[in-house]
């Protein structure tokens, strides 16, 4: 009888310890990212299908976003630089989606990409001329607000969105209110990379338990 009580206590203690000490941390699976087909700065098609299996960090902006407009490019540049210095096992892509396709043609995007130092094959700057589809992708799919103003500028939510290789949103970062966002994103990229590397066999069970116990990285 004693061993049974001991076993029960051990079971409860193990579950509590897992929840409290969180030996494994994960990022929540929030919702599906939208599927899309756009054109990038090189005039090539960029599709959500092509980014499957990679970790992708999205942000939303437009090339005419200059002060006081808060542009995410400085942060993207820093993330691109840090990823080059400390590469992850899983490929990581950066995608800036422009919600100003009337002005941001592929030529404009190319010039812009050169100015911000977007590496080919790493950082895509893309849009689509189908504005209705763009609204579906950004507004309904990524749940990011943007609205043109009368002067041609845009009002928009300053946000980064982290998507895993399955096309599932795993993190959202409001870069005007969350400081320091770059460090947090890089930390989360490493957490996601760890999960991807341990997504097979027994390790996967442990990671699924971490999801079950909501052991989410801060």
């Amino acid at each position, binding site marked *: 009888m004693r061993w049974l009580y001991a076993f029960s206590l051990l079971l409860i203690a193990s579950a509590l310890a897992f929840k409290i000490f969180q030996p494994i941390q994960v990022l*929540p699976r929030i919702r599906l990212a939208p599927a899309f087909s756009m054109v990038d700065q090189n005039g090539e098609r960029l599709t*959500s299908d092509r980014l499957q299996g990679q970790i992708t960090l999205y942000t939303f902006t437009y090339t005419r976003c200059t002060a006081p407009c808060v542009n995410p490019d400085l942060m993207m540049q820093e993330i691109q630089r840090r990823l080059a210095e400390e590469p992850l096992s899983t490929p990581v892509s950066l995608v800036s989606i422009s919600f100003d396709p009337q002005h941001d043609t592929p030529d404009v995007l190319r010039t812009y990409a050169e100015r911000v130092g977007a590496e080919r094959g790493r950082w895509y700057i893309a849009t689509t001329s189908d504005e*209705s589809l763009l609204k*579906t992708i950004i507004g309904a799919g990524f749940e990011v607000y943007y609205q043109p103003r009368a002067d041609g500028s845009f009002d928009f939510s300053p946000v980064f969105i982290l998507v895993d290789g399955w096309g599932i949103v795993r993190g959202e970062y409001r870069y005007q209110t969350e400081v320091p966002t770059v460090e947090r994103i890089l930390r989360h990229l490493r957490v996601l990379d760890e999960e991807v590397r341990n997504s097979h066999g027994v390790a996967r069970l442990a990671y699924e338990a971490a999801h079950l116990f909501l052991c989410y990285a801060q």
Partner: protein
Amino acid sequence: MKNWWKAFLGAFILIGLIAWGWWRFAPYSFHGMVMQSPEPAPDFTLLSKDGPVSLSDFRGKYVLLYFGYTFCPDVCPATLANLAQALHQIGRGAERVQVIMVSVDPERDTPEKIGEYVAHFDSSFIGLSGDPKDIARIASLYGIFYEKEEVAGAAGYLVTHTASVRVIDPEGRLKLIWPFGATPDEIAQDLKFLLRR
């Protein structure tokens, strides 16, 4: 003697509680990606062979949502056959599951055509088609990428598309995604687990 019975009864209850707790709360490893805090799945209305059908019509059931097309040479028939086999395996539980296939080739797939196509796999399956723009929007929101691919021959073109299955729970929230290739056994196991919750 009395103490012996008490100990036996205590042990019996404890084992029962542990077994129930394990059955109810043990981490279950799904054969796909599970959403721990699922969000509402986007509702939509499209046309079946019997008229308009909305996702929200199926509250109270698990909906297995698949995007494909009737000209699909291999991936779609394989997936639909696996789903049909899995439903067969879960027996009466299948009454609480609805398979819906949305066409990613609405130009060729009329509601009648896709309805007849899915019925070949299981008479309970529902096939939906509709306005190409509506379908493009719905597919995008469900993370389904598709595009035409020109091929030689009578078909003219094929449609490359995301082949995973989305599972919507009875409250209308996206719960699980099965990759292409999930076997009938794996699908049936996951459904049995979900249905006993």
